């Protein structure tokens, strides 16, 4: 298998080189799993020098504003509350501390793999209130919606979701409209596309004359995606292409979208680094208000300024590299993170630090 993979990689790299032929090209990916795969496989150093890869806002944890994280931490410290969360959230810094530190102060926090596990915790702990932190893009939102539906049907009284989901297409629109951004192509997210369909990127391709390729997470998938983008650029095209047919269809997963719509409705949401984006978040519909942790606890998000000197906002937009942040690898390290880009395992700064890119 080794030689096979290396052979394939070589084949794709030479096609990329042919397509770019010295012309500088910049491609952005907006999916945390793509970020990790690119770094883990060491692809950057294999690509021709003229091809630059930039990581955009693909990490749902990284784009959650500090004020919202503070709200979650505040909830977790309430007596009688069990906070169930994906592991990703545990070390994200709020304005004073993070969930892991809240746990050290007595907060009952359980790491789960699935929102369905959080429901089970609620069923097994009827005297506690279980709050599930609903983070993630369109890949995760449907499973949270399905869990809310199940809790509602089963008339579960002690389970709630703190909704903090974000939607990708509205953010892409805002991001690419920024005159400072200079991108030649978009590596479209893998599993977000499974839900929303490859067609969801057509407006982006058209409005910004931007080649878009949906691709998978294996290093070879990513090389294939870059190859297709480079070829489109060289031919002056701007289409949406799907190179991840085993997981993504043109139309996406209608059933999942319908379930999202049943439980959630689009709302304005604040994105770290991008500001408030209309219709880019999800709020729980009134019908399911008993399961809405925000309503139940009446928490309100305080607008908290970004930590002083933190460049996460610029880095999320792909407009600055971690190395340009004065705190990178000195004051801001995975052990002492200042901003989420460093602490989330999908964050750009964490990836740069861990994989030694400079």
């Amino acid at each position, binding site marked *: 298998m080794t030689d096979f993979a290396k052979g394939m990689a070589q084949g794709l790299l030479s096609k990329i080189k042919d397509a770019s032929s010295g012309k500088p090209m910049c491609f952005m990916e907006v999916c945390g799993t793509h970020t990790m795969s690119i770094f883990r496989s060491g692809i950057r150093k294999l690509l021709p020098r003229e091809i630059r890869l930039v990581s955009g806002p693909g990490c749902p944890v990284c784009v959650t504003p500090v004020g919202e994280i503070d709200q979650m931490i505040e909830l977790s410290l309430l007596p009688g509350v069990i906070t169930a969360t994906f592991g*990703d959230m545990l070390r994200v810094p709020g304005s004073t501390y993070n969930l892991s530190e809240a746990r050290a102060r007595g907060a009952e926090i359980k*790491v789960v793999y699935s929102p369905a596990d959080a429901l089970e915790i609620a069923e097994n702990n009827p005297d506690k209130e279980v709050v599930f932190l609903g983070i993630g893009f369109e890949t995760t939102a449907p499973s949270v919606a399905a869990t809310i539906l199940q809790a509602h049907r089963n008339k579960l009284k002690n389970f709630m979701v703190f909704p903090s989901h974000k939607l990708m297409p509205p953010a892409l629109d805002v991001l690419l409209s920024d005159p400072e951004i200079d991108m030649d192509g978009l590596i479209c997210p893998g599993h977000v596309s499974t839900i929303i369909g490859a067609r969801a990127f057509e407006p982006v391709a058209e409005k910004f004359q931007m080649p878009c390729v949906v691709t998978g997470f294996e290093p070879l998938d990513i090389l294939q995606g870059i190859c297709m983008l480079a070829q489109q650029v060289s031919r002056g095209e701007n289409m949406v292409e799907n190179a991840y047919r085993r997981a993504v269809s043109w139309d996406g997963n209608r059933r999942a979208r319908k379930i999202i719509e049943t439980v959630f409705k689009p709302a304005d949401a604040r994105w770290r680094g991008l500001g408030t984006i209309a219709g880019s978040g999800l709020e729980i519909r009134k019908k399911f208000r008993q399961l809405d942790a925000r309503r139940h606890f009446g928490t309100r998000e305080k607008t908290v300024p970004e930590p002083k000197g933190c460049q996460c906002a610029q880095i999320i937009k792909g407009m600055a590299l971690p190395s340009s942040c004065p705190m990178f690898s000195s004051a801001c390290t995975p052990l002492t993170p200042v901003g989420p880009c460093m602490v989330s395992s999908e964050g750009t700064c964490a990836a740069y630090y861990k994989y030694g890119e400079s």
Partner: protein
Amino acid sequence: MKASRVLIDHGSGGLATKELIEKIFLKRLSNRYLSRLEDSAVLDGKSSGRIALTTDSYVVDPIFFPGGDIGSLSVHGTINDLAMQGARPVALTLGLILEEGLLMEELEQVATSIASASLDAGVPVVTADTKVVPCGKADKIFINTSGIGMVPEGISLGADRARPGDMVLVSGFIGDHGAAIMTSRANLSFSSGINSDSAPLHRLVERLLDRCPGNGLRLFRDPTRGGLATVLNEIAQASRVRIAIEEEAIPVRAEVISICELLGLDPLYLANEGKLVTVAARECADQALEAMKETEEGKHAAIIGEIMEVKKASGPRVTIKTSIGGTRIVSMLAGEPLPRIC
């Protein structure tokens, strides 16, 4: 034992303690030292020489996991710490802190496990102590074991002894213990056939030192907390070298790769409790590999990389060549590996 749970009384030093010690521990762990129940074990000394001494505490959760439990782990882990310095383990101490309310049945299971591991390894537990703390002040059971061993003449090992040109070897599949722990924790709804690799390594080390005399073997390390990546970084720093490993050469079970993919974990950072890393001079690397492959615990051993000169600009570091021919750095673990979903 009449009581079905551990009570505060069992730690008071009186009759209840005596009953616990006799019925749970002496019944399983008796030897001429422990059975005397003196304040200290006085060991028959032989020659003078270098004494290796180590201590470790075990707080693993859950206490029972596929392939072992906190008991066997506490025996293997401490024996291995001695073995990594080339020491022949002589004896172990056993200190237990029990939480009031711990099921006696569970304590019996752990005691059986300790006895079994000790017997298999041929290293006796010569002195022990138990304490009981109130409910909520400990998580079921905490164990501390210390080990004492003798280091034969002429053995000189250290993390600072790796030299450019040396080869890096591992004794088998990486990540088994960490993956077994992850899959057996509640809230993570997977099952797999992955067992912890918890095992004593002193016999393997002895065989290796025998097969590669002189200073052909520079060091041994067992990649426990922090995994292979952490140990390699420690070696790189201590020896001031660059370590280059190959992804395809590192033995990892398919199930472990699968779990890691599902949970967003990296096998390089998962704990191992029955594996060692060694650095061998180039001329004896093949013999070392052969020596390991002849054993049960080392049959999947492999050469995974080599030691190179450090580049002034970048300093000591560990790099890995990926499956598609790319290169990246392998850094130290920042904190506990957490499942990554989003």
